[in-house]
C-alpha cells in the first residue's frame, strides 16, 4: 500500500496548487518558510492576494533575479523578495499586531503533526538539538484561518494526522484546514472531517493512513489537480 501511495500522492507543488485555490481576491496571507511559500505560485486567475511577512513587509512579490537581490528586502525565511506597488513597511511590533490582532485572513504553514482537535506541532522535533520557534506560535493564534500543507504521512509511513500530538505543540486547537498529499481535511468540533480525496484511494485506505477517526463531510469531492502542476 505504501508503494501505491507513493505513486498516487500529490507532489508538494500539487498540494500548494490545491491550497492556493481557496485563496480569495484581496486576502491578506502569510506563508510559512519553505514548502508553504510554493502556494504563491498558484494563485487563481483574477485573485490578487496580498502577502505578509513577519519581518515587516505587506504586499511583496516574487524573488528578484539572481544578482539583483537587495538584502534589506527579505522575507521571514531570509530570502530576497521584491516590493510590489501598494506595498508597505513597518516594524516588528506593528507586524505582529497584524498577526495577533486578527487582521490577516490566512496563514498556510507546514506541520510535523496535527491532532483532530486542531493542535499543531511544527516547531520542534523534541529530540534535543536547537529549538527555534520564530513567528509560528503568533501566526497560529492570531490569523483568522490557519491552513496546513503537508504530506499525509511521514517518510517512514507514520501518521501525521493524529488523535493527539506527541511532539511539542505550536498551538492548541488552532488549525482549520489541512491540505495533504492525499486529501483535504477540515477540523470541525474536534474531528477530522474529510472534504476531498484523490480519486484512486478509498476512504478506508485513507483512514488506515490517518492516526485518528476520519469523519465524512456532507459530500467528499474528488481532489483533482490540473495537468502540468
Amino acid at each position, binding site marked *: 500500500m505504501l508503494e501505491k501511495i507513493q505513486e498516487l500522492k500529490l507532489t508538494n507543488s500539487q498540494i500548494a496548487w490545491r491550497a492556493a485555490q481557496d485563496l480569495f*481576491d484581496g486576502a491578506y496571507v502569510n506563508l510559512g518558510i519553505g514548502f508553504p511559500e510554493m502556494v504563491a505560485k498558484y494563485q487563481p486567475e483574477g485573485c490578487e492576494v*496580498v502577502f505578509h511577512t513577519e519581518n515587516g513587509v505587506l504586499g511583496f512579490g516574487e524573488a528578484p533575479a539572481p544578482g539583483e537581490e537587495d538584502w534589506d528586502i527579505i522575507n521571514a525565511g531570509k530570502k530576497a523578495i521584491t516590493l510590489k506597488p*501598494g506595498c*508597505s513597511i*513597518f516594524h516588528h511590533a506593528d507586524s505582529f499586531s*497584524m498577526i*495577533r490582532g486578527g*487582521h490577516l485572513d490566512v496563514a498556510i504553514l507546514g506541520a510535523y503533526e496535527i491532532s483532530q482537535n486542531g493542535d499543531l506541532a511544527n516547531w520542534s522535533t523534541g529530540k534535543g538539538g536547537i529549538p527555534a520557534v520564530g513567528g509560528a506560535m503568533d501566526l497560529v493564534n492570531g490569523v483568522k484561518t490557519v491552513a496546513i500543507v503537508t504530506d499525509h504521512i511521514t517518510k517512514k509511513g507514520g501518521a501525521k494526522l493524529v488523535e493527539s500530538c506527541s511532539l511539542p505543540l505550536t498551538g492548541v486547537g488552532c488549525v482549520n484546514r489541512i491540505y495533504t498529499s492525499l486529501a483535504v481535511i477540515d477540523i470541525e468540533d474536534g474531528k477530522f472531517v474529510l472534504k476531498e480525496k484523490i480519486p484512486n484511494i478509498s476512504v478506508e485506505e485513507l483512514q488506515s493512513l490517518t492516526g485518528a477517526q476520519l469523519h465524512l463531510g456532507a459530500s467528499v469531492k474528488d481532489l483533482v489537480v490540473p495537468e502540468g502542476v
Partner: protein
Amino acid sequence: MNKVGSNLLEAVSVISDGASVMIGGFGGSGAPIELIHALIDSGAKDLTVINNNAGNGHVGIAALIEQRRVARIICSFPRSADPRVFNELYLAGDIELEIVPQGTLAERIRAGGAGIPAFYTPTGVGTETAVGKEEAIFDGKRYLQERWLKADYALIKADLADTVGNLTYRRAARNFNPLMAMAAKTTIAQASNVVQAGEIDPDQVITPGIFVDTIVEVKSPKQEEVLNREGACYPC
C-alpha cells in the same frame, strides 16, 4: 483590489444604530469632519463614540452629540473652548461618559488592534480611575490592569491614501487615527488625496492598507477650529 468608495454617505451607511465608532482626531486636528457630518446625515443613532474629546462648538462630534445620536462617549478630556453641547446633555443625564486617562485610552486602542486583551500601566494607580480594576505589583511597583478597546467602526482622517488603503497623515493630525484604524472591525478613511498603489513610498506608509476598508476622497477637508471661529453648525 480597490478600496476607494464613491461618496461619504454611502461609506458610512454601513454604520447601524447602536454601533461603537472610534473617531480620530485630537480636538480638531485630525478630526474627520466630513465623515462625521455624513454620519449625521445617515441617521445612525444610539452610538458609542470613542474619541479623545467630546466635541467643540456645533460641528463634528459636537454636532453628532447635538443631534442626539450619541448614547455614550469614551474620552479623556470632554472640556473644550465651547463644550456646551456635551455639557448640557451630560448634566441632564442624557449621555453616558467614561473618562479614560489619555495614554491609557491610546494604549487600550492599540491593544485592541494588536490582539493584546489586557496590559498593566502605572497610570491611575490610587486614583478614582482605578476603581474596579485589578491591581498588581511588578518589581515592587503598583500597576493597574487595563483591557483592550475595540469598536465596530473607525472614522479617520488621512492626508494621502492609495487605492489599496495605505495611508499617511499630515503633521499632528496623525494622533489617534492610526491606532483607531487598527482597532475597528471596519475602518473608513477620508483622505485629502487618493493616489494609485505604488505612489506612496512603502517606507512612508503610516497605516498599512490591511487596516483600512473604505477610502473616500475629500479634497479640501474642513478644520473644526476654523469652522468654529466662523460660528458654523451642522446641519444648518
